[in-house]
């Protein structure tokens, strides 16, 4: 009796199933190679450092940046990238490249995120982006000695320092739009993250008033841990507003 009332296990789309099987295998192989690479090189130069030299109190501060970033990126971006997360994570530059490209690909093909078709077009976008990036970086590395003058041009250096704000400026409209595509639409979804906006605004303004621009811009370095802390706040707040009827899912034409 109880067996009949239980919901049947979800059958994955063939592409999603392939990603979760072979994408995962391919990712594990890449990870093993990435970790082994320094040891092979260092071993050949008889320069492998002792465990205590690598992992100690002075290096922990740097390591914690990576750990926090890694965890927060996984928690934040796996749902956005879906089954193409394996490729996205292994090729890196997630926030400034892969996520925007995935969102743009889904929008361009008029699909919804987290659906089989949405996952497939996001994967196409991420794969193309990964190949293009590798080609551009390879050309740059090969020509690095000839192109190094570019970095001496002040305007060029200034522009590259402001990649993230320029990126968010260009993406914000798309991020809002992505919650309102397809046959169903989330109405007032932004209300669920209002507490996050208020908390982060207060923290940033507080840091700026107390410690000046230097302190407030230093918060950018903590964005990974902040996302980890704020995600449960956003989910809880959205759930409460959904239950109270403030956030609704309606047909697109009733929007």
């Amino acid at each position, binding site marked *: 009796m109880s067996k009949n009332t239980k919901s049947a296990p*979800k059958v994955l789309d063939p*592409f999603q199933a392939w990603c979760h099987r072979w994408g*995962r295998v391919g990712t594990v192989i890449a990870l093993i190679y990435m970790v082994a690479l320094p*040891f092979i090189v*260092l071993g050949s130069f008889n*320069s*492998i450092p002792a465990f205590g030299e690598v992992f100690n109190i002075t290096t922990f501060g740097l390591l914690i940046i*990576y750990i926090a*970033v890694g*965890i927060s990126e*996984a928690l*934040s971006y796996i*749902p956005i990238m*879906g089954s*193409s997360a*394996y*490729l996205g994570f*292994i090729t*890196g530059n997630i*926030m*400034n*490249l892969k996520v925007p490209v995935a969102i743009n690909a889904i929008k361009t*093909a008029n699909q919804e995120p*987290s*659906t089989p*078709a*949405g*996952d497939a*077009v996001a*994967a*196409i976008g991420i*794969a*193309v*982006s*990964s*190949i*293009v990036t590798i080609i551009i*970086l390879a050309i*740059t590395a090969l020509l690095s000695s000839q192109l190094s003058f*570019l970095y001496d041009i002040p305007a060029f250096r*200034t522009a590259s320092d402001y990649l993230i*704000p*320029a990126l968010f*400026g*260009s993406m*914000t409209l*798309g*991020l809002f739009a992505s919650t309102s595509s397809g046959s169903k639409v*989330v109405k007032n979804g932004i209300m669920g993250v209002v507490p*996050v906006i208020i908390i982060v605004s207060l923290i940033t303004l507080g840091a*700026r008033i107390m410690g000046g621009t230097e302190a407030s*811009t230093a918060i950018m370095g903590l964005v990974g841990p*902040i996302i980890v802390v704020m*995600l449960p706040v*956003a*989910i809880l707040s*959205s*759930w409460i507003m959904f239950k109270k009827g403030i956030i*609704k*899912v309606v047909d697109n034409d009733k929007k």
Partner: protein
Amino acid sequence: MATMKDIATSPLLLVLVAIGLAYIVAFSVVYLMKAYRRALELGVTKEDLMRVIKTSAVSTIVPAISIAIGLFALIGSLGTIWSWWRLSVIGSLSYETLFSGNIAKVLGYMSSAEMMDTASGREFGIIMILMSVGMLSGFLILIPFGKKYATSVDKSQADSNPWKMVFSGCFMLCLLAVYVPILLFGDTIQAAVMLTGLVVALILSILAQKPKLAWLNDFIMAISMIAGMASAQLWTNIFG
């Protein structure tokens, strides 16, 4: 005793990095072919897929050039080959730059240039291992829980459970809710650059509503991002 420079410029490192990058390209190509075939089966038209490929390539060029510019900054502290590898796999321009900016001080050097000139091979080993092991934390979630986590927000069940659709939107909105106030209130120049990108994107999206300018839709992100970055020098002159 090997120095940092010996290892950072060694042919062995170059060959291993080239093999690793060849694997990543092959992995991407296989993903691309599988996804392309499946998208066609699911009813996405060839024209739409070609637009996805075109816009993905075009919108990658600008950030990739920015990453390439960042490569120059990293070369001074980590050498060309290792910087190239880090920015091509797993790494992120912002965090790799943050790491390379701090590692010299952690190892007791006054500057990255001094570290590059005088550090030992073992010290470069510390850098290589820390950078390689550090970013594994995300994979400790992705590898065992990725399937369950990704499918838990599948929108195909939104009709039967509307909360799932709200839940899946939470992640992107939370990202926006964290970054936007920090960029807006943290620094005047950052805010001005972000607002420039936003205003340009808004103008382009209004223009793109005209049938003759619909093609602009594919370039809104790339153009508004370039405009935002290009405005940085102007805002620096005014507010800097």
